[in-house]
């Protein structure tokens, strides 16, 4: 019997790995997700065979309720709200892991567990609870229910440090056996929930790509630790895969934002001190007519979308404008910064939703060399990620951050609400260049105004 179960787990692990492998290309990614889901089904059916199945009806009912809720949310969520949803599912996974660990502790015969089980159980409990609480706060901030601005908390590090110490003290006490196991577990879990809340609450919205990636990695680790508790290799393999993925994305996002993980987690809210890089030149405001004329005779156009485009829901209007330009024979591409949006790769999903073909979407590294031969760059609701100071002003807080080199194009049009600085609070010298035109207004309204004017150009 156990051989069959283990064979099922092995098959599931292989399907998970193949599923992740097929995510390498947009053409095969959907098949990969099916394989992964099939793996999950195989794993669940296998687990049902692992012993006498008590409470089967209750579990089925609970599963059905959760599945219905999950499908309803997953079907209706807007793509702009994807980061919240991913954070939410992250939290449920972390919470489930913590509860499984708690159950292992509660079931411990005579209130004792061997250290080889107790240690991973506490790790699961701590990491899972922190992930649950942190994800919940992240989701609330992304949804705008809790302010997305960086919140300075009094005694931020003292409180976090105390909670962490309390959790670790519970673990130590449980290992030595001086306190009842269940109480130690409950207190440790509660301290960890507090730690998760307290750590994520002060972090600003623009740092969310790093935070979500990190929470993803934590939940993966919690799943793997659950595998150690239950001596289940499938959980270990799946958890390790997710942990690796989250860790890689965390590092990639940190690099792209020029923020170390320490900066994001332990504060030092960036302030706009001396920006460096010299004076900005005179700004040249423009009109939709002028932009349409400029675009009408451009051969090569690159669109650089930022989160501002998503905020004004201009994706469809921008896509229509690009289609009209392509019809006139222009080569239109999108240049996408890794942190455009609120989670890794978010902008690509928003554009895919507007039916922009993914082979028009270019990563920063792939498009940067092409800017000198680009006639017009259309910057829509992006700021810091196109700031040339990151390249040539050693005094700027942005210096060293990888940016899109749009200032090297022949001319630049910036669609923007106002001259307000971006997240880093730094002046953008791009806006004062002689070859830069500023089109002020709502991105959606302006994109469609430019399109109307373009259609009028013969």
């Amino acid at each position, binding site marked *: 019997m156990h051989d069959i179960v283990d064979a099922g787990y092995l098959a599931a692990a292989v399907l998970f790995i193949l599923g992740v492998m097929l995510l390498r290309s947009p053409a095969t990614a959907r098949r990969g997700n099916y394989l992964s889901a099939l793996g999950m089904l195989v794993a669940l059916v296998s687990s049902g065979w692992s012993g006498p199945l008590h409470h089967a009806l209750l579990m089925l009912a609970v599963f059905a309720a959760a599945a219905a809720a999950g*499908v309803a949310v997953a079907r209706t969520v807007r793509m702009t709200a994807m980061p919240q949803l991913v954070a939410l599912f992250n939290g449920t996974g972390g919470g*489930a892991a913590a509860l*499984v660990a708690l159950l292992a502790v509660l079931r411990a015969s005579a209130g004792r567990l061997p250290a080889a089980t107790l240690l991973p159980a506490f790790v699961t409990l701590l990491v899972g609870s922190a992930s649950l609480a942190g994800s919940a706060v992240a989701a609330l901030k992304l949804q705008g229910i809790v302010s997305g601005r960086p919140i300075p908390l009094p005694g931020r590090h003292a409180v976090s440090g105390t909670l962490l110490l309390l959790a670790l003290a519970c673990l130590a006490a449980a290992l030595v056996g001086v306190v009842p196991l269940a109480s130690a577990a409950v207190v440790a879990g509660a301290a960890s929930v507090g730690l998760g809340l307290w750590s994520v609450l002060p972090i600003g919205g623009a740092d969310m790509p790093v935070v979500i990636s990190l929470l993803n990695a934590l939940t993966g680790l919690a799943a793997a630790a659950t595998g150690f508790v239950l001596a289940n290799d499938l959980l270990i393999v799946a958890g390790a895969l*997710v942990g690796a993925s989250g860790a890689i994305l965390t590092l990639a996002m940190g690099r792209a934002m020029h923020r170390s993980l320490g900066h994001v987690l332990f504060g030092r809210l960036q302030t706009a001190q001396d920006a460096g890089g010299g004076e900005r030149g005179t700004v040249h405001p423009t009109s939709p007519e002028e932009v349409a004329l400029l675009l009408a005779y451009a051969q090569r156009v690159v669109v650089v979308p930022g989160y501002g485009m998503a905020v004004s829901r201009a994706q469809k209007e921008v896509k229509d404008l690009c289609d009209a330009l392509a019809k006139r024979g222009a080569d239109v591409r999108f240049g996408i910064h890794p942190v455009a949006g609120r989670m890794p790769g978010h902008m690509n999903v928003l554009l895919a939703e507007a039916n922009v*073909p993914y082979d028009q979407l270019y990563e920063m590294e792939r498009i940067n060399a092409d800017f000198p031969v680009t006639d017009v760059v259309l910057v829509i609701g992006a700021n810091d990620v196109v700031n040339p100071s990151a390249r040539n002003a050693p005094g700027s807080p942005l210096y060293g951050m990888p940016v899109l080199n749009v200032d090297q194009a022949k001319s630049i049009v910036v669609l923007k609400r106002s001259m307000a600085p971006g997240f880093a609070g730094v002046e953008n010298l791009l806006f004062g260049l002689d070859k830069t035109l500023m089109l002020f207004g709502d991105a959606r309204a302006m994109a469609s105004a430019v399109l109307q004017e373009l259609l009028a150009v013969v």
Partner: protein
Amino acid sequence: MPAVLNEAFVFILAAFLGVALITKIPSVLHTPLMSATNAIHGVVLVGAVIAMTATHGTLQIVVGALAVFLGALNVVGGYVVTDRMLAMFQKSRREGGSPRA
């Protein structure tokens, strides 16, 4: 080999495999990647089912049922929303007559 070492062995190898696989995934797909791995960590649902089969008493049953609920929400919601996103990428390939292949 003691069981714990055996498990550590599996964990380390899987982590290396994960790093090797994930670094090959283009940033265009990073959101679906995160959502897909999100669904995969829902595998703790398997752990919840195993733990649930041996519960005794109301407290344990409630904790177990809650774990099953959270895990199932994670798994089902995660896969469905990932599929929805990936379908958009597929569609955007088919319908958008891109000038550049």
